């Protein structure tokens, strides 16, 4: 069965410093990987995705993520954090091997990012 893990409940960084939010996954086939951001009392917003191709994926708001097949990871990164980046971040995975309900998107538990001035 597919699964996704976000090992950190919270990440704290200072404004201007680089940030990393970690994500690891487990699938049987090829992974479809996504990052979403959720601001307070709002729905989730799509940031970026990896389907195939270049392992470094660039997304919205200056975020990027690196797909590492050997480590089954898809960490979210940003070179210079902003206070406005403070939000809840979700990693999600879909197993390309399966159809039906087994091929649906599975979300991690989320990581709260706090960027201090």
């Amino acid at each position: 069965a597919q699964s996704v893990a976000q090992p950190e409940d919270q990440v704290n960084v200072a404004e201007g410093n680089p940030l990393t939010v970690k994500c690891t996954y487990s699938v049987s086939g090829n992974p479809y990987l996504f990052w979403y951001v959720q601001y307070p009392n709002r729905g989730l917003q799509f940031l970026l995705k990896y389907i195939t191709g270049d392992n470094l994926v660039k997304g919205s708001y200056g975020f990027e993520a690196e797909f590492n097949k050997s480590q089954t990871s898809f960490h979210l990164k940003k070179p210079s954090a902003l206070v406005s980046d403070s939000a809840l971040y979700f990693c999600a995975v879909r197993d390309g091997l399966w159809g039906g309900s087994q091929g649906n998107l599975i979300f991690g538990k989320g990581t709260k990012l706090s960027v201090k001035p």
Partner: protein
Amino acid sequence: NAGVTQTPKFRILKIGQSMTLQCAQDMNHNYMYWYRQDPGMGLKLIYYSVGAGITDKGEVPNGYNVSRSTTEDFPLRLELAAPSQTSVYFCASSPLKTGELFFGEGSRLTVL
């Protein structure tokens, strides 16, 4: 372009009451989903639909029902509300099975 619209945004129910959470999208997406979000638990899939007239269970379907009579609408029905159904509910849609999801703003439900 409204995207995915959910109503109501907030609702308080008594145990045993029933209600329907409405979801509509104007992007002509075939795939639609209902998730619930509980603190520290991420999002759990309740039901999904791959097109009008086709629905299927997700990870946590018990206590819920759905229908998909049109491409645009995907209502979620709670028949006998229980405190365990206190949660924030999100509707989402996607043009492709492998595409990103577009989420509504959520419906916060409290069952007392």
